């Protein structure tokens, strides 16, 4: 038995080697469970020292490789030598020869490419004013500060789809007193900057490229419940024991016009239990023990993933429209950094808004193509060829005007200052006419300033002792610097253009401003920071508005895939294409529309005939369940007649 097992393991390892270090999975495109992320050369803005850029790139890549000290569910390879390797291959080296070169590691086909853009790098002296309570003085602490603005984008090689776009700032400082004078101080600030960049890289792509596995059988069963299950590819996809995997049951697969929609339901959760054995890949069932057992017995495909479903960028996306990211025009001749950041924030928003559109990259398309060529030449099975997403639309943006300015605002304060005591003058000489009354002499002396009656304590029949007269103070009104108020303004022309027809789907001119305020701190960076803040606020507002307009102008239709429940009235509940990423919300009302063709003067045109109304009751990963509110009978009739029935937001 042991011998057979060893032989099986050997056979497995041999197969693994043949297929290029990974095992193919259930992904519709045949992706491996442990995807490979190829890191490209960083795109460095002019003026940034090469050494600094190199350090930043290395730090970021190291961050990607290390998932909080754990083994990430993806492999990171460096693509620095990519061009060189492709050139070598083009010179006619055989695959055998290539295996012996030192570039082999770099030539493993990547499913995803990651590029870091280093947009800016600055190093300077900053200062903090710290008030020392004990010593009663203000200490000015100067230190070195290194800061950078970076953009990380992750693109799917096969489709050119942008999976992640992230524009971020990082900084590092020397925090000791007077640590700004020497070169060592500068180097330390850069080191701190790199440390932060590494931390940002850590886990940045984790949820985007995580792989998946399928449940093959039940390992431990108890009264119809699956207590432990066996996965086909477990050890490499779960970084930590505590991290559970979601279990999705693929209930049915629908094919509509060549597009695949999986009706998927989340049925439970599993995780690496105490009894986990790497050779067995046995996982403990944390939730849904009964359902998982039933599905396994019924032969349903059960997919486990650490992220959400669908896995990666696929499934309904094939039927979605896509938008190309491109550099925009800069009529305003704004600084390159401003243009870059505006563009990047817009792209970041785009990549985070997958509800309506897939985002495809055309800025680094040449590099993606190079990677594909390399995979073709090395016969790598990493990427399925020829499935690129063409762009349906692109955004035509022109930055017409950009300005930023800041003003130092002053405030008026009133300070009190003790007045120097007046020099005592000699008492005036006593004259005969003066009457001297000694206090406490028992004589009926009359107080010159008697206390008010209500101030007299009735028990003691005395007034409290009078407070000593306050020391004389002088009030001084001063005008001092308070804060920097900055304003950034921009005018942009934006239009969404159809690639197929060249038509403008929507156009808008945006004229916006952003504000930033930084308290005056006697710091030479205050002004810069306030302007930076104003610009960032402006960029975020512009980007948000543009995306709102795109969503408003593109209204998708979702096909009715199947009838789930019927009654004597007709279709009661139906399944429609479009799930989590379709912009549906629970309880949303949608219109039922039949598309019919009408002939008008010899030409055929589509007509959207409203036949009823439905309510979204359940949103699944790729599909949704709707309850028919009206038009049940007609809907059933139309579906039986193979009519084209869709739903759309009313």
């Amino acid at each position, binding site marked *: 038995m042991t011998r057979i097992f060893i032989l099986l393991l050997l056979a497995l390892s041999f197969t693994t080697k043949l297929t290029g270090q990974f095992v193919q999975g259930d992904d519709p495109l045949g992706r491996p469970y442990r995807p490979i992320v190829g890191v490209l050369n960083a795109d460095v803005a002019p003026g940034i020292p090469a050494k600094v850029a190199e350090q930043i790139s290395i730090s970021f890549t190291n961050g990607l490789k290390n998932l909080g000290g754990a083994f990430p569910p993806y492999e990171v390879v460096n693509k620095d030598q990519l061009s060189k390797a492709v050139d070598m291959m083009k010179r006619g080296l055989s695959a055998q020869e290539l295996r012996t070169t030192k570039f082999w590691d770099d030539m493993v086909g990547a499913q995803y490419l990651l590029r870091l853009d280093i947009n800016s790098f600055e190093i300077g002296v900053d200062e903090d004013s710290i008030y020392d309570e004990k010593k009663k003085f203000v200490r000015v602490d100067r230190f070195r500060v290194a800061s950078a603005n970076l953009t990380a984008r992750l693109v799917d090689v096969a489709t050119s789809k942008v999976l992640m776009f992230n524009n971020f700032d990082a900084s590092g400082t020397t925090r000791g007193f007077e640590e700004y004078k020497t070169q060592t101080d500068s180097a330390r600030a850069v080191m701190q900057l790199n440390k932060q960049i590494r931390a940002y890289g850590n886990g940045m792509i984790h949820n985007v490229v995580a792989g998946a596995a399928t449940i093959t059988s039940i390992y431990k069963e108890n009264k119809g419940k699956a207590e432990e299950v066996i996965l086909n590819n477990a050890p490499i996809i779960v970084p930590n024991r505590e991290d559970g995997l979601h279990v999705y049951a693929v209930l049915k697969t629908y094919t*509509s016009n060549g597009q695949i929609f999986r009706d998927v339901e989340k049925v439970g959760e599993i995780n690496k239990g105490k009894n986990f054995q790497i050779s067995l890949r046995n996982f403990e069932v944390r939730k849904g023990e009964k359902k998982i057992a039933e599905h396994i017995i019924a032969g349903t495909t059960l997919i486990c993933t650490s992220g959400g479903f669908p896995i990666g960028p696929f499934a309904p996306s094939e*039927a979605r429209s896509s938008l190309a990211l491109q550099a925009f025009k800069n009529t305003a001749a704004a600084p390159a950094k401003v243009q870059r950041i505006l563009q990047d924030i817009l792209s970041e928003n785009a990549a985070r808004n997958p509800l309506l559109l897939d985002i495809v990259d055309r800025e680094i398309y040449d590099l993606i193509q190079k990677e594909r060529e390399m995979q073709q030449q090395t016969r790598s099975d990493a990427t399925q060829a*020829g499935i690129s997403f063409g762009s349906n639309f692109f955004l035509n943006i022109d930055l017409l005007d950009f300005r930023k300015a800041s003003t130092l605002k002053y405030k008026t304060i009133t300070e009190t200052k003790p007045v120097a005591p007046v020099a005592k003058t000699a008492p005036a000489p006593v004259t005969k006419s003066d009457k001297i009354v000694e206090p406490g002499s028992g004589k009926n002396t009359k107080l010159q300033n008697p206390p008010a009656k209500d101030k007299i304590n009735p028990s003691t029949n005395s007034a409290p002792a009078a407070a000593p007269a306050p020391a004389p103070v002088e009030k001084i009104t001063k005008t001092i610097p308070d804060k920097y108020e900055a304003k950034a303004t921009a*005018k942009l022309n934006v239009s969404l253009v159809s690639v197929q027809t060249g038509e*403008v789907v*929507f156009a808008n001119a945006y004229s916006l401003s952003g504000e930033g305020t930084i308290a005056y701190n006697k710091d030479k960076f205050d002004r810069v920071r306030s302007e930076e803040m104003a610009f960032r606020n402006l960029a975020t507002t512009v980007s948000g508005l543009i995306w709102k307009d795109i969503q408003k102008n*593109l209204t998708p239709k979702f096909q009715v895939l199947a009838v789930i429940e019927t009654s004597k009235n007709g279709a009661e509940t139906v399944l429609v294409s479009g799930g989590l990423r379709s912009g549906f919300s629970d309880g949303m009302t949608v219109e039922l529309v039949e598309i019919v063709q009408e002939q008008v003067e010899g030409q055929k045109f589509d007509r959207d005939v409203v036949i009823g109304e439905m309510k979204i009751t359940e949103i699944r990963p790729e599909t949704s369940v709707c309850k028919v509110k009206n038009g049940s009978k007609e809907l059933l009739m139309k579906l039986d007649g193979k009519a084209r029935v869709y739903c*759309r937001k009313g």
Partner: protein
Amino acid sequence: MLLFAAQSLLAQNSKTSIWVAPLESDNPSTLTFSKEARSEIVESFVKFGSFSVVDREATQLVQQELELQKSEAFMDGKVVEQGKAVGAEFIAKGYYHSKEGKFVLKIVDVSTGNTVETDEYKMDFFAANYRKHLRKMVYRIANRWLSGAKITVMRSLEDKGESTQRVLLAGGSGKGLKVGTMLEVFIIELEEIDGESLERFAAIGKMKVDRVENANFANAKVRSGEKEIFRHFAANKKLYCRIVQN
């Protein structure tokens, strides 16, 4: 399947296609403003809903993308249909006379070179509300332009006895129809005048749009002439309508 209304809408060229040419001015300092103003005109035509506004500035990018999609990398992927570019039937030309503070917008027919519509307005490009005026101007032109167009009344959707209650129109948002648009229903009669046969639009009723299906179709409720409309449909006669109030 997810489909974009915008795509299907674009695929059906029932709309009038127009290109807004770069605006001209006698004062070069109005360059930024003229770019903004042009964007406002484009936006207004798009928002009006009856026009396909084509972009010629982006032609190079469109061509690049179309070329890219012809490559092997897209063989089994997702591509747009080639050769579907829309040509502009009309060009909107704007001129700003800075000395007079006057903006003139003309619509020129590409096939004949004739100016089909024109409008002008005294405005200051530097004033805050100039965009509002531009929009009003575009809407004025568009309404005038479309009001003359005849829309085919396809058939009855609802009859009550021998009177037609609701009808289907072969025109939707693409013809400028909105819910509430008032229409005049007419038949075309030929009149002989001095041996020449001329078309006469003989009004037989009134309707109000109560649903716009898409760019190509709308439904209207008959407000007057129900019986006459029914009779004409029964006799298989062609019925048309035109916008009287939008």
